[in-house]
Every structure is written in C-alpha cells, then in structure tokens.
C-alpha cells in the first residue's frame, strides 16, 4: 500500500462534514455508561475485599470513600491462611501448568501432520476435530470419571491434567494447524533439499516460527483451565488437598453465605493471576480468540 492510499484510509475515519462537538455527546454518553456498568461490579468487589467485615456487612462499598478511611488486609489473611485458599491457589497452579503444557505439545504434533503431511483420510479426520470442538463436556464426563476411577486417578492431579488435555485438544489442534498451514511451502522444500528430516523441520523451523500462535494458545488454555469449575468439581471435587480455587470458592459461597468481606477477598485471590496475564499479554489472548473463531 502506498503512503497516499494509507492517507486516504486514515482520513476516512474522520467525517467529511464539519461535526459540532455536541453532536457527538450521545456517542460518548453511551460509551461511558456502558463502561461504568462494566466497571462497577469489579470495583465493588475490590473495595469490599479491603474493608473490615463489620463495615462490609452494614454499609455499602461506596461508603468506603468517606473519611476516615478504614482499609484492612484481614479478609485476605483470613481466607488465605484459615480457609485453605492458599493451598487452593497452589493447587490451581499445579493443575493449570501441566494441563497447559501437555495438550499443546500433543496438539503441535497432530497439527504438523494435518498441515504438512499427506495421508488418506486427512480431511475426514480433521472434520472430526472440527466437530469435537463443540462437544459439551457433560456428554463425556461420566465415562471419563468411570475411567479415572477404574485406574485409581480420581481425586488426583493427573486425572485433571489428562482430562483437560483431551478436552483442550480440538481447539489446540485447530488453531495450530491453521497457523502451521500458513507457513511458506518453499521453506520446507529448502530444508528437505538440505537433508533435514520432518522432525528437524518441526523443531528447528515450525516451532520457532510459531511462537506467536503457541503463546496465544498457552494463554488461552491456561485461562480456561484456571477458570474451569466443572471438570475439577467432578474429577477432584470433594478432596480439599487437591481442590483448585474455583471449587474451593464455589463451596465457600455455600458455607459463608452473606459473609461478603470474605467472599470478595477469595474471589479476588482467584482473579489476580488471570488479570495479570490479561494485562501483560492481552494481545496474544485476543489473537487466540480471533484465531479460534474466524479464519486467521
């Protein structure tokens, strides 16, 4: 694209007719109203988690901004130490990290075969992967639970790792196959002429060149596993020693009822890591979402 045509494209964003500032007021008003509605619930949670319990239970979170301020970390020390949330946080990590690494490695292998190898039934098999993308977990979970119980894994981390690997694979294969398929054919031909095997090409060319796609997938799968309730609830549910944050907090909602100072602190503990990942790696996260839904 030439500089001139870029100029036209940019210019097209600004209206041609002179626009008075007040004619754009409704636009700003709608956007700001929507932002407020989206922001308020999270702010309410955050503010309440730092207020003393006695105040959270008698006055609204908006009163926190009146002098004198009274903020405290008591709610956090309470949920982390006394209510086992610290252990759950570690459990969430122990579940999420392997459950992210394993499916991506397995998917990369399959995606490479789908993208760059010829075999009979390739298209039919890939259509199966596309079909499996939308299979509801509910329709697989009872037999999976029977299976993990039969081999003695129910209530242990490996059960969740393996299940998440299976459940995450269709999306991972789909995304990586599309990305691998977009790599230039000449590159592979040159590598093979130089005597490289497909294995060498995979580790030396495909993986390094696919870092952006793999990064998106890592973030996506990590967030999905970290935030999952159903799989963890069914496969490790009743065991506090291995329960992740989602399961522990879901139980707290039942047992703590209206103790909002504790529930808000607990919820925020579960949000810290995803929010850090989100703010630091937002671009990759968005790219993962785009790649999975529309043709990349």
């Amino acid at each position: 694209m030439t500089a001139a045509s870029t100029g036209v494209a940019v210019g097209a964003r600004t209206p041609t007719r002179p626009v008075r500032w007040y004619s754009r007021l409704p636009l700003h008003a709608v956007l700001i109203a929507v932002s407020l509605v989206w922001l308020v619930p999270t702010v309410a949670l955050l503010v309440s988690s730092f207020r003393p319990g006695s105040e959270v239970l008698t006055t609204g979170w908006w009163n926190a901004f009146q002098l004198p301020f009274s903020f405290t970390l008591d709610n956090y020390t309470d949920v982390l130490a006394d209510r086992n949330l610290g252990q759950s946080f570690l459990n969430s990590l122990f579940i999420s990290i392997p459950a992210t690494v394993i499916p991506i490695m397995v998917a990369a292998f399959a995606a490479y075969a789908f993208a760059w190898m010829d075999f009979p039934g390739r298209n039919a098999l890939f259509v199966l992967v596309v079909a499996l993308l939308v299979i509801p977990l509910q329709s697989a979970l009872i037999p999976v639970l029977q299976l993990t119980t039969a081999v003695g894994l129910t209530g242990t981390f490996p059960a969740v790792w393996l299940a998440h690997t299976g459940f995450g694979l269709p999306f991972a294969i789909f995304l990586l196959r599309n990305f691998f398929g977009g790599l230039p054919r000449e590159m592979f031909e040159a590598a093979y002429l130089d005597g490289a095997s497909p294995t060498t090409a995979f580790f030396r060319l495909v993986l390094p060149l696919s870092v952006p796609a793999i990064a998106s997938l890592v973030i996506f799968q990590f967030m999905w596993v970290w935030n999952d309730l159903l799989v963890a609830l069914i496969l490790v549910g009743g065991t506090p020693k291995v329960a992740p944050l989602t399961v522990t907090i879901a139980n707290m909602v039942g047992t703590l009822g209206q103790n909002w100072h504790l529930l808000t602190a607990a919820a925020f503990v579960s949000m810290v890591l995803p929010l850090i990942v989100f703010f630091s790696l937002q671009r990759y996260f968005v790219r993962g979402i785009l790649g999975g839904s529309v043709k990349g």
Partner: protein
Amino acid sequence: MDLGIGLIAVVVVIGVPAITVLYALGTEWVLGLLPERRRPGLRPWLWLLPGVVFLGVFLVYPTITTLVLSLQDKRSEAWVGLDNYLDLFGQALFWQTIGNTVLWIIFFTGLAVFFGLLVAVLADRVRYETGIKALIFIPMAISFVAASVIWGFMYEFDPRIGTVNAGIALLGVEEQSWVTEWPRNTIMLIIVGIWMWVGFAMVILSAGLKGINSELLEAARMDGANEFQVFFRIILPLLSPTLAVVGTTIVIIALKTFDIVYVMTGGNYGTDVIGTLFYQERFVNRDAGAAAAVAVILLLTIIPVMLINIRRFQAQEAAR
C-alpha cells in the same frame, strides 16, 4: 503444603517437552527401520498418534459410552430402553429446565452480540477506543465462579449493601429479591453471562469492522448517506458472516451453561439449566442413566451448530 505434589508438577513441566523430543526422535528411529518407500505412509500416523489417543479416550469413546449409559438404569446395570428419556419428558422440572435454556439461548446470545456490536461500532469512532475495549474485555479473563461472587454481591437483598437494590432505592423502588423469583432470576443470571461475554463478541466484531474497506464507507457518506444508513446498509451486511460466527459460538456457551447457575443458586428457585440438571441427576440423585440422557439431549441440541461449523470450515478450506 505438600512438596510431593509440587515436585510432580515440576517433573511434568520439564518431563513433557523431554518426552516430546524423545517421541519425535523415536518416530524417526522406527521409520529408519523401514524401507524408504514405506516411510511417508507411516510417518503421519506416528505424529498423529498421541493426539488421536487423547481424542479417542477423552472425547469419542466417552461420548459413545454416554449414549449407551442413557439406555441403562441408574446404576448402569440393566437395559431400560428409552425410559430415562420418557421419565425426563414426564417431569415438570425438565420442561422448566428446557425453558430456562431457551431463555439463555435467546437473551444471552442476543444481548451479548448486541452489546458487543454496539461497543465495537461506537468505540471505533472515539480516541479512547483501546482503553474502553480493554475495560469491557476484562471480565473474559476471570472465572464464572468469581463473576458469580461479584454479581451475588451486586444482587444482595439488603439495600444498605446490595448495589442494585441501593440503586433502585434512589429511584424510589423498594428492594427486590433478585435471585429467588422465576423467571426474573434466570434473567438476572443471564446478565452475569452477558457481562462476561460481551468482550468476546466485541473483540471479534471489532476485528471484522476493521476489515471493512473504509473507502467504501467514505464513498457512501460522500453520496449523502447518514451514519445510520451507513451502518444498516453497508456495515451490517458486510459483518453478517462474523456475526454468525460470534452468534453460534455464544449459543454453544449458552447451552453448556453450568458455573453461574451452580454457584449463584445451585439450580434452586427454578433456575436449573441443562448443564446443572446433568450434575443434579448424576451427583445428587446418583442416577447415571438420567444424567446420561440429559447429556445426550444437550449433545443433540448442539449437533445443528456443529454441522453449521463443519460446513463453514469446508467453505473456508475450499477458498484457501
């Protein structure tokens, strides 16, 4: 804390890539034993093997088994034909569950797409676009469980504490119990879902919007079209394939809904959806047959979306 568990996790994180490399080298070694002309035929299957095993063991086999279980009794010991389905069809609870799921499909999908489109189109015209999009997108990063706590606090009955009731008190309306009365409670739960998923619709629609040639829009404006005409006559038709993708994805999310209902009401007060009914049948009523039947019904409702996805995929492949 349990060091042993941490150790296992570390071993997995280091071990998996190591195993991967060894597996790849192993496939080359196996292929090296074969005559050269046989290698290209076998190689793809060795690369696919781990993936195919996982898909088979955790998705294909269990789904087929669920079909079988739905034809057996609660302890999976005897064949009962279609009794599980007929029992479900005879229960008022089941039909209420279906009704709620329909509400989820209509309102969750409709409003998430509507607000996603609204924000994408409006934010495109202002300088603070990036900031506002990040803000709307934040809830996508957190769990349904955390979102349920956040909104449980919003919906709290005590108007001194509950933001929504305090807000309507300002308008002179007395406090409401938001999650106990059907069908309003289902709508209130759907709002939580919308709050989370508008960001998803917005991000994809915004990307679609940026893909529209702005010279086209400018030409229409030069010809005297106003902004509404530009939106309805040009932007909307051009975005319709993207809208279809977003819509089908959110319909699937709506059908699979579980977490919000499980955490906020536990399915009480008539808020059950297919996802929670499944859990209720299997883990509260301990009826594997009925739970499997619910899962099969869920699967059947998703099959049309699955077929749409496959057809769309094949069209994309043909265009490659």
